[in-house]
């Protein structure tokens, strides 16, 4: 790739005292601080640095910025492998390692370039027309080959070892772009006292001024940087890309922290996403130069004129000694003058005949040869440009030797960000460019992005925009703004330019990265893909990593010419964020790995972990699944834990249940409306199991609610629905039933809850609290009491989920562990042990209580066998829509119990149920919701929903589980497998 050094002995804005080593494809190179990977490679003589997407054409750098379509690299290695990074925006750091992409065996000699020979076959949309035979599904034969050929870099499957941050920022005025316009805007806004944030994607402020050779430009920048630093209310962020504009003046910002070394220091973030909320925004996003469209315009050595000037003046890299500058506007002339100043022999081919006297005079002085009215037809050369064929009015076939071809087809204002909000850009004929079609309130444009392409205009518009933005947020300057300093002037950086020719022969590229040529655009037009979006999608134009920053306008102008309409009538594509690609890891920030989502832990969490609990994710919660005392696997442990509860006494953590305090004179009426059953007549000191419905009469949630006083209830919800129920209660009280005087407060996190269950539960509790009267008379089934133990409030209810005699105890969360340990210690003589979620869920199945898998938003009260709970004499939510005919129809799937009839087999959740005589196909008559081994019945049992429900009790059915090839016989029984009369609860 090398052909000697192109670095000049002096000049540029690089720090020659800080040489840096880096490598490409394993070879070591040297550059300087202040280089980009691209400038350093070019200084080292780089030519071919990449291969194109489709034809694998050799490519060199086209640009010096974010618009780069060709020079993409894979940076780093191992878990830090990062593909597709443009070398033009990669700041050079010591030890950077880069690899070229998409060439095999190398980008310099790429065997895949044979694809170029097949180019006539591979026109726009060729794949839609073939790969269909010989059989249905033949595409899948071809697809793997195509997939392997496509794609750019190769990614790693190793875990990213870096970390990322996210943060929020608030500011009065956000200025996007640190070129002359943005700097002026920031200074003007800052001088009013408004809080200002200025962001620049480059590692240096200056924008277009960084390209200038004149010392005046550099002095201006130094003064401006000093002035910015003096304003305490102004913050400047470089290496910060504004990715997108979102609703509510929200701008997403990517800050890169990779400028000291390739990888972050230990503990430091690689990148930070900042969500900026700005009260006003100044867009000073600049403009990007467009290439010219002609045959073989993708040859390495054909480069954007301003980029060549940037490499020369900023990086002291002279890219050719015999240069041709082909242009349709004045800006590229500056490149010609600067190249000549650096000692190159330069010829300008200007598409215009009418060239200003001033330019001609400067050319004469600089000894730059000028050929007006010249249009480039073809670049010559293979892996680097060797010459150029062009036409003038008099001579249609001229050629020039050259070792650098600088091109400029005009400028495209960077209207991306300002268009993200939905305001479409409009085409300006006088500069042949799209400019913002307007600004939302509080948005202002400045500089080149508005079409103000001359520095002096940019400065003035920047100052104006800065003042306007500050004014928008109520800050006015207390003194007149400083005079805008003047920098070198360009005459007509943009002027109306001829559209690309529609009949360029061979491969004249419009989109470099995706290999879209003039011929492809022509073909799209012929086939009717004229709408911009059709053109883009049919040819893949503008869909590369550069998102068409150099190609979209040329393509639009071509299509307009083909259609014979004005470019302004051809429409534009929609600009989509992000402005430049952004790491997915940065977007995820710190919400990765175990911190992907917040973890909710019970106040007893540490105890569980310390005492052999195996924890399991239950929605946001971590809960004790089972304890190792009972077994090594969940399959065996839960059975031991069940035996414990059925035969002795166990203790389980139910802190994750939703707990809501309901108070007020109308609390009874409120609950009466919310629940299907009656709470108004619930006696103080009693609790009741209740069910609430959705408006559409499906079951929302269930739980027990205790009445501790005339006007005070303690409501519990399922773990899963706690937040939903709370929000719903608030909605009803605040919007629908504002006449009710009731307050609701969530106490879920404030109270620890535990259930002590088993035939020895009362004895155990007596050991823990010998002074309490726990007799059946004092605390009957469904009774509840508020007591105080050593100054700690304790809520005690005699409730059972397991079907055994059981008590629920609630204490303030901080006392949870103390109570838990006290219960275990006091009742140790009775053999008390903790039991986990799996046993909890299994015990309730034996008792026939519904839970999560039955309460899935699809089922009605009657489906769950709870219809009799509804007190229809009073109104409640869901009462009316419950009467819809299909919800009342016979034969709905409703709750039954199942007993496994095959001793060697088991029941499984998700099995589909069939009557014995049914064909085993279709959707069956129901399905198994929850399964457990029953320690009481010594067989597998299940809850299920079955067509017609309990009218089929006693029938034998088939549980089909084709995923495992199983069909198991089971008998329909009552879902209450144990203690149907509830005798165990009333002892």
């Amino acid at each position, binding site marked *: 790739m090398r052909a000697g050094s192109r670095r000049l002995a002096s000049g540029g804005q690089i720090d020659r005292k800080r040489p840096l080593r880096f490598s490409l494809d394993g070879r070591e190179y040297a550059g300087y601080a202040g280089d980009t990977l691209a400038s350093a490679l070019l200084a080292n003589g780089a030519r071919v640095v990449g291969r194109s997407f489709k034809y694998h054409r050799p490519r060199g750098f086209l640009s010096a910025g974010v618009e780069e379509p060709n020079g993409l690299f894979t940076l780093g290695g191992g878990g830090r492998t990062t593909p597709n990074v443009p070398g033009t925006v990669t700041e050079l750091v010591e030890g950077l390692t880069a690899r070229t992409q998409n060439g095999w065996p190398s980008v310099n000699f790429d065997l895949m370039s044979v694809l170029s020979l097949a180019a006539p076959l591979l026109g726009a949309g060729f794949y839609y027309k073939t790969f269909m035979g010989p059989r249905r599904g033949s595409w899948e034969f071809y697809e793997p080959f195509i997939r392997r050929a496509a794609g750019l870099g190769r990614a790693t499957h190793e875990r990213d070892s870096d970390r990322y941050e996210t943060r929020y920022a608030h500011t009065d005025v956000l200025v996007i772009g640190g070129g002359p316009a943005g700097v002026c805007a920031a200074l003007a806004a800052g001088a009013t006292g408004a809080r200002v944030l200025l962001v620049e994607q480059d590692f240096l402020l200056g924008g277009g001024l960084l390209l200038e050779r004149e010392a005046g430009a550099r002095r201006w920048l130094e003064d401006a940087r000093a002035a910015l630093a003096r304003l305490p209310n102004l913050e400047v962020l470089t290496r910060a890309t504004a990715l997108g504009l979102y*609703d509510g003046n929200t701008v997403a910002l990517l800050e890169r922290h990779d400028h000291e070394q390739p990888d972050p220091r230990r503990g430091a973030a690689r990148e930070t996403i900042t969500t900026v909320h700005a009260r006003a925004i100044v867009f000073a996003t600049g403009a990007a130069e467009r290439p010219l469209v002609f045959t073989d315009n993708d040859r390495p050595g054909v480069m954007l004129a301003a980029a060549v000037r940037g490499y020369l003046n900023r990086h002291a890299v002279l890219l050719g000694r015999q240069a041709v500058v082909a242009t349709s506007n004045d800006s590229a002339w500056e490149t010609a003058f600067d190249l000549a100043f650096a000692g190159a022999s330069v010829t300008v081919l200007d598409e215009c005949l009418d060239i200003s006297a001033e330019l001609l005079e400067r050319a004469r002085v600089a000894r730059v040869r000028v050929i007006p009215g010249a249009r480039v037809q073809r670049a010559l050369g293979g892996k680097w440009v060797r010459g150029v064929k062009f036409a003038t009015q008099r001579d249609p076939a001229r050629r020039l030797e050259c070792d650098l071809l600088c091109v400029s087809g005009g400028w495209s204002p960077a209207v991306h960000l300002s268009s993200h909000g939905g305001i479409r850009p409009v085409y300006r004929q006088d500069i042949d460019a799209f400019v913002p079609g307007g600004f939302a309130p509080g948005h202002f444009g400045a500089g080149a992005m508005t079409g103000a392409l001359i520095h002096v205009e940019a400065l003035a518009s920047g100052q104006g925009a800065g003042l306007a933005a500050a004014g928008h947020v109520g800050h006015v300057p207390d003194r007149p703004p400083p005079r805008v300093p003047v920098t070198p002037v360009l005459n007509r950086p943009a002027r109306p330019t001829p559209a690309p020719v529609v009949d360029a022969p061979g491969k004249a590229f419009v989109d470099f990265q995706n290999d879209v040529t003039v011929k492809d655009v022509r073909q799209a037009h012929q086939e009717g893909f004229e709408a911009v979006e059709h053109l883009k999608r049919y040819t893949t134009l503008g869909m590369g990593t550069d998102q068409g920053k150099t190609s979209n306008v040329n393509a639009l102008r071509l299509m307009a010419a083909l259609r014979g309409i004005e470019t302004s009538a051809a429409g534009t594509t929609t600009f989509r964020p992000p402005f430049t690609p952004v790491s997915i890891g940065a977007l995820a920030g710190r919400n990765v790995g175990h911190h992907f989502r917040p973890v909710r832990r019970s106040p007893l969490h540490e105890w569980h972990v310390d005492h052999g609990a195996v924890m399991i994710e239950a929605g946001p919660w971590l809960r004790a699944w089972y304890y190792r005392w009972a077994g090594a696997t969940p399959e065996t442990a839960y059975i031991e834990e069940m035996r414990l509860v059925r035969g002795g006494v166990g203790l389980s953590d139910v802190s994750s249940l939703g707990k809501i305090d309901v108070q007020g004179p109308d609390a009874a009426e409120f609950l009466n409306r919310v629940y299907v059953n009656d709470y108004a007549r619930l006696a103080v000191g009693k609790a009741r199991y209740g069910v609430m419905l959705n*408006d559409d009469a499906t079951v929302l949630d269930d739980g027990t609610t205790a009445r501790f006083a005339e006007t005070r209830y303690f409501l519990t919800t399922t773990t899963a629905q706690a937040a939903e129920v709370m929000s719903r209660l608030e909605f009803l009280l605040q*919007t629908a039933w504002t006449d009710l005087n009731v307050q609701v407060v969530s106490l879920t996190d404030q109270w620890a809850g535990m259930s002590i269950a088993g035939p020895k539960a009362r004895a155990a509790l007596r050991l823990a609290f010998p002074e309490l009267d726990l007799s059946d008379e004092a605390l009957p089934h469904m009774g509840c009491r508020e007591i105080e133990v050593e100054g700690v409030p304790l809520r005690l209810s005699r409730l059972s989920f397991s079907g055994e005699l059981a008590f629920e105890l609630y204490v303030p969360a901080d006392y949870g562990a103390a109570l838990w340990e006290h219960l275990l210690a006091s009742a140790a003589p009775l053999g008390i042990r903790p039991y986990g979620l799996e046993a909890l869920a299994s015990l309730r199945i034996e008792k026939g209580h519904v839970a999560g898998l039955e309460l899935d938003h699809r089922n009605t009260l009657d489906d769950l066998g709870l219809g009799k709970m509804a007190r229809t004499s009073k109104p409640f939510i869901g009462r009316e*829509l419950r*009467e819809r005919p299909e919800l009342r129809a016979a034969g709905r799937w409703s709750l039954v119990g199942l007993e496994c009839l095959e001793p060697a087999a088991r029941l499984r959740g998700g099995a589909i149920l069939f009557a014995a005589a049914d064909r085993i196909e279709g959707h069956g008559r129901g399905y198994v919701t929850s399964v457990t081994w029953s320690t009481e019945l010594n067989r597998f049992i299940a809850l299920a929903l079955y067509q017609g429900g309990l009218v089929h009790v006693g029938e034998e059915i088939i549980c089909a589980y084709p995923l495992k090839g199983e069909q198991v016989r089971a008998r329909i029984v009552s879902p209450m497998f144990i203690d149907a009369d509830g005798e165990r609860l009333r002892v």
Partner: protein
Amino acid sequence: MRINCPHCGERDYKEFRYAGDAVKTRPALGDADLRAWHDYVFLFDNPKGAHREYWQHVLGCRQWFVLERDTATNVPGRTFRPRERGSR
């Protein structure tokens, strides 16, 4: 998007919960008109343009309120407390 909570001021929309059309009239509790309940629960005007909708400041004051918002642009307008004049 930013939403101006009538109690807490402007906050990120992620702090809020959306609950749809606030113009629809919830039938009175016990109203036995099945059609009225059906329309309230299942039918939406779903306008492209001005919309009044319920939001709750879930991660803030937990108050429900009515927000005026243009669904074609997401530009939020006034907020109302429920039942406040003009909230419908």
